[in-house]
């Protein structure tokens, strides 16, 4: 294997002052986690303000790249060749080998930049630059030097060993999961909520999730599908504690006691209340939903006001300004789309009225909810008590 190591570049977290160490540690932890499922053994460590991934055994290059591309906080990473070179001649030979293996065609402009961290190395960096550059030009006739705007930088770092790297593979950006608290995602089987979860965990937030199951109106397959979606989001976010709430009795009770066109909005309010309960229990700082303004009756601005007022935690709605197609694009990119569109009924649609209220008035809704006062607390407590947990990893 040519590359023994990867140098990880992280942008945003580098500028966070005193919190920097916290962020770096979170990133190291997330990289370790993501590589656990990759073949081979890896050592991830911080050194002089950088994070390195050393490959201790044989490994699958494409697999490692794919895993690192899912770790939030990584802006980019470079495959690194480690060389035992002791002289500029040996460094040049290894660099030639490195270039021929890194790039399919060698017809770009370049610049060599050497850093001599080991000051007992006898040749100064400028001379190494010039010598290696010259040898590269001899070895690859199509290469040209451009010290101002090179197409490719070639870095040589002389430390206890010599590190040679050049190509930067883009990472997903964002911030390492765990560096920014925790949130509770309301996960349905649809396209939007997994995307919302992805976007929030991209900002460093750890996720748990809650799903409302309504047997026999929703099937075991629908539940399986949500578990699958949680696993897909977990590839980015790390393990998710998925709460599966049996919501049937609450839904039927609302159906019995409240005006039919208010069913969905009142149902949403109870979902928020239950989600908030679990958020507090899990010490999460916020709720996350996949709502997008005006997409359906329960997502009009008036509806959001009415569902929002039942909880005191902030509710993050990262898709609020997205069009459906924009959401679909992200879902396709992160791989949840195909699963999301499997045609199983979800609990929001089973009793939906033909013409649900689109501009609910909070006083009217509160008044309707009074009809529930006899049994609703008991039903909510029962739903919470019987909630099933699935560890989505």
């Amino acid at each position, binding site marked *: 294997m040519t590359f023994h190591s990867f140098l990880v570049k992280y942008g945003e977290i580098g500028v966070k002052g005193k919190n920097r160490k916290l962020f770096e540690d979170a990133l190291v932890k997330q990289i370790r986690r993501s590589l656990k499922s990759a073949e081979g053994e890896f050592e991830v460590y911080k050194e002089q303000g950088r994070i390195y991934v050393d490959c201790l055994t044989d490994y699958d290059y494409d697999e490692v790249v794919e895993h690192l591309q899912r770790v939030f906080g990584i802006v980019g990473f470079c495959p690194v060749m480690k060389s035992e070179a002791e002289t500029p001649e040996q460094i040049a030979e290894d660099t030639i080998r490195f270039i021929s293996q890194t790039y399919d065609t060698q017809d770009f402009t370049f610049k060599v930049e050497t850093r001599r961290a080991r000051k007992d190395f006898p040749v100064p960096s400028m001379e190494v630059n010039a010598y290696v550059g010259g040898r590269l030009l001899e070895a690859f006739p199509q290469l040209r030097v451009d010290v101002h705007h090179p197409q490719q930088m070639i870095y040589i770092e002389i430390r206890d060993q010599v590190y040679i790297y050049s190509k930067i593979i883009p990472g997903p950006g964002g911030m390492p999961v765990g560096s920014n608290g925790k949130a509770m995602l309301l996960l349905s089987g649809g396209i939007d909520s997994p995307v919302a979860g992805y976007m929030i965990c991209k900002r460093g937030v750890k996720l748990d999730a809650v799903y409302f199951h309504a047997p026999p109106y929703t099937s075991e397959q629908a539940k399986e599908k949500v578990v699958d979606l949680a696993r897909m989001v977990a590839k980015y976010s790390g393990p998710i504690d998925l709460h599966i709430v049996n919501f049937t009795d609450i839904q039927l009770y609302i159906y019995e006691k409240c005006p039919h066109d208010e069913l969905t909005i009142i149902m949403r309010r109870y979902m928020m209340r239950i989600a908030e309960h679990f958020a507090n229990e899990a010490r999460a700082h916020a709720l996350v939903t996949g709502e997008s303004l005006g997409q359906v009756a329960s997502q009009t601005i008036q509806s959001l006001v009415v569902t929002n007022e039942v909880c005191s935690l902030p509710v993050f709605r990262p898709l609020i300004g997205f069009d459906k197609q924009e959401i679909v694009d992200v879902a396709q990119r992160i791989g949840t789309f195909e699963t999301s569109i499997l045609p199983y009924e979800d609990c929001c*649609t089973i009793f*939906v009225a033909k013409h649900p209220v689109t501009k609910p008035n909070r006083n009217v809704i509160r008044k309707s909810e009074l009809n529930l006062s006899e049994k609703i607390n008991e039903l909510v407590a029962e739903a919470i008590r019987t909630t099933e947990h699935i560890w989505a990893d």
Partner: protein
Amino acid sequence: MECYLDNSATTRVLPQVCELAAKVMTEDYGNPSSRHRKGLEASRYLKTAREQIAATLKVSEKEIFFTSGGTESANWALIGGALANRRAGKHIITTAVEHAAVLMPLQFLKEEGWEITFLPVDESGHISVQDLKQAVREDTTLVSVMMVNNELGTIEPVEEIGTWLKKEYPGVLFHVDAIQAYGKYRILPKRMGIDLLSVSGHKLHAPKGTGFLYIREKTKIRPYIYGGGQQQGMRSGTDNVPGAAALGLAAKEAYAHLDETAAHLQELKQQMVSGLQALPGVVVLSPLDETGAPHIVTAAFSQVRSEVLLHALEERNIYVSSGSACTSNKKLPVSGVIREIHLDKALEDSVLRFSFSRFTTQEEISYALKALQEILPFLRKYTRH
């Protein structure tokens, strides 16, 4: 109580069938193509299985070809039969209510230039032999009709069709999809004028991945899988010895108990149908007379979505099939026969199928009927407005 009323989807493997397959897999695991003793031992299982199956149909063992199941058998019969007879003509006749295992290979043939005639059915799913007689042309080379409809249990008049074809159009191949019929009915291909007969193992207490195609001797048909020349060069691939042995034994068992099975299933059907008819808002769609198979009872439940009823029954460990799949957002196409019998639109999404095996008990039927009696009023109370 577990109440499995979905035997037309699949059946439980018989314990003795399972034991036999396990013995073949762990002890007599040779490759029948091998020249040593182990190979010979294995090939004996194949021979026995062929003989067992041939005996149930009163045909020669050389006419039995093992496949991976009903779908492969039907694909082979139709595509292999059509290709081998393409010079004689490219017209095929079938019914509008066939299973996808027949419809999809015909769709393939249609794209390859064949012309397909689909015969319509009446409100109980029967085709008319008269329609078929009128549809046959000079260039017709293949007729394919299912014996028992998988959704309604309707029995099609295959014997009448087969004998007429043999008399009037002896060159036309007649394929029968007997996937729901084999093991429930005496099927005699020679007497019924059947050239090709598709059977699936897992519908009669053999494992999934087993099945056979009966091919009448001298039938013009192409091989389906090319390779090492197994099964007279018609269907290559290392023989599935445990599967074949299991299928042979299951077939033998099914036909050893045929008469008592028929009587038992008929009783169960009676019980189910009268129980259903006593419930308000239930319409039994399966034919009630002898033109309906005794192991399938399909009914529509007004104001109830079949998917929801299915899951509500599932909560009580009762397993059934829904007639068509549909979600609130997207209407999926209604299943073939439900569309073809022109059921009231309001009932299209309310169809359930109950299907029995010879191991189904009257207690199970009573349990299911009692559950329906409780569930239906509850579900009807909460409906979409």
